[in-house]
């Protein structure tokens, strides 16, 4: 099969050819065109010269030893043998504050948006953001890729040891992409991923003990975050989608 390309197509692919990112017939067709076209050959040569010069002039790095020392010094130290699989004391102590905040907000007639105590807000937000980022950069082999809520629910129960409801939100416009087990401060939690359009929303679920309900809405670093509790479960949803869409997701999740 012979594939021919014109100058327009060729010039759009020269950069990828340079990076050896074109495959098979596509790469061969561009190479064949370049061989017989002086204009495209000159463009490829210019791009090659540019790449050579750019790579030959990386930004000089400063001495990073002081920065490494600062990072090391900022890492928490903990006596060996301290149990890990527990919720941090500050988080447990934050829950009454959160619940109180919800009550005040309700009394004020406000929407279910809560101003969290700064320390709790920062750390809860960071935990959720970190988990969100982590999910985007781990292999899907870490979890189950499935659009079947029943199958996903079975997988989570097998890995977590307790039942996890995975709602079907197709009717609300959110398609299930998969599930995995993640960790929020060393505590295993169910992590569900849904997609609407080009945006992903992740939901973390973990059993609620005797602590008060959790409710909050944060906006951090371009991500919308919701915390809430429902039917014996704490939940956290996080996404880059707009606040209204995420609220629609939360409503559908609880329906």
């Amino acid at each position, binding site marked *: 099969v012979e594939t021919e390309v014109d100058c327009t197509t060729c010039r759009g692919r020269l950069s990828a050819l340079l990076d050896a990112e074109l495959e098979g017939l596509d790469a061969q067709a561009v190479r064949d065109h370049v061989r017989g076209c002086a204009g495209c050959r000159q463009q490829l040569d210019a791009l090659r010269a540019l790449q050579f010069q750019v790579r030959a002039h990386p930004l000089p790095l400063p001495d990073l030893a002081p920065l490494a020392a600062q*990072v090391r010094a900022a890492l928490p130290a903990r006596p060996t043998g301290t149990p890990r699989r527990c919720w941090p004391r500050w988080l447990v102590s934050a829950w009454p504050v959160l619940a109180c905040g919800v009550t005040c907000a309700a009394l004020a007639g406000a929407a279910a948006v809560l101003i969290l105590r700064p320390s709790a807000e920062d750390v809860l937000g960071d935990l959720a953001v970190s988990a969100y980022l982590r999910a985007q950069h781990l292999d899907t082999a870490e979890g189950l890729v499935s659009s079947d809520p029943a199958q996903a629910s079975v997988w989570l129960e097998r890995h977590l040891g307790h039942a996890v409801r995975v709602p079907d939100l197709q009717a609300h416009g959110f398609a299930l992409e998969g599930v995995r087990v993640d960790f929020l401060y060393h505590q295993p939690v169910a992590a569900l991923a849904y997609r609407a359009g080009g945006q992903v929303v992740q939901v973390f679920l973990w059993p609620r003990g005797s602590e008060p309900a959790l409710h909050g809405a944060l906006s951090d670093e371009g991500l919308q975050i919701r915390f809430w509790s429902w039917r014996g479960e704490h939940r956290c949803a996080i996404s880059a989608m707009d606040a209204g869409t995420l609220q629609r997701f939360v409503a559908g999740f609880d329906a």
Partner: protein
Amino acid sequence: MATDDRSMRFAAQVLPCLGSAYRLARWLTHSHEDAEEVVQEACLQAFRAFDGLRGADARPWLLAIVRHAAFACLRKRHGVSQHELLDEDLEAAWAPTATLPIGPEAVASHLQDAARLHRAIARLPMVYREVLVLREFEDMTYQAIAKLLDVPAGTVMSRLARARQRLLVLLSSTPARGD
């Protein structure tokens, strides 16, 4: 107090990537001070998320967190809007048929001065600068960059082509030192 083995594992896996982290942060923020702060913040975030790494390659994972922290720094400290950071409209402005503004010999002569090249890269819009930096200085594949940016690999391919085209345009218009 004995240092926790988790901190030691983190230091062993993540700190070797500090150079890559600083370089990306520096290119995104244009500032040594901001870059150092971004890397420190990113490392703390990475430490909190470290349990989930579980043997995966730490470098792209850390770079994704650095990028996120750099954007947060630009928004909070410099008032840069999300639209400015990720202006997708820019992509429509490039025509693949356009003739490159300078030829290969001119590229070589324009780039004798590294500072001139760095000034030109710094002037690239963010969506182009980040893919160029990840490709040329971190030597990442299109697939790896796509995963880091959460965009399709085809988008990386087109952004990189446009980045190089724009860089050539900028080089042809960026004065050499002393001009």
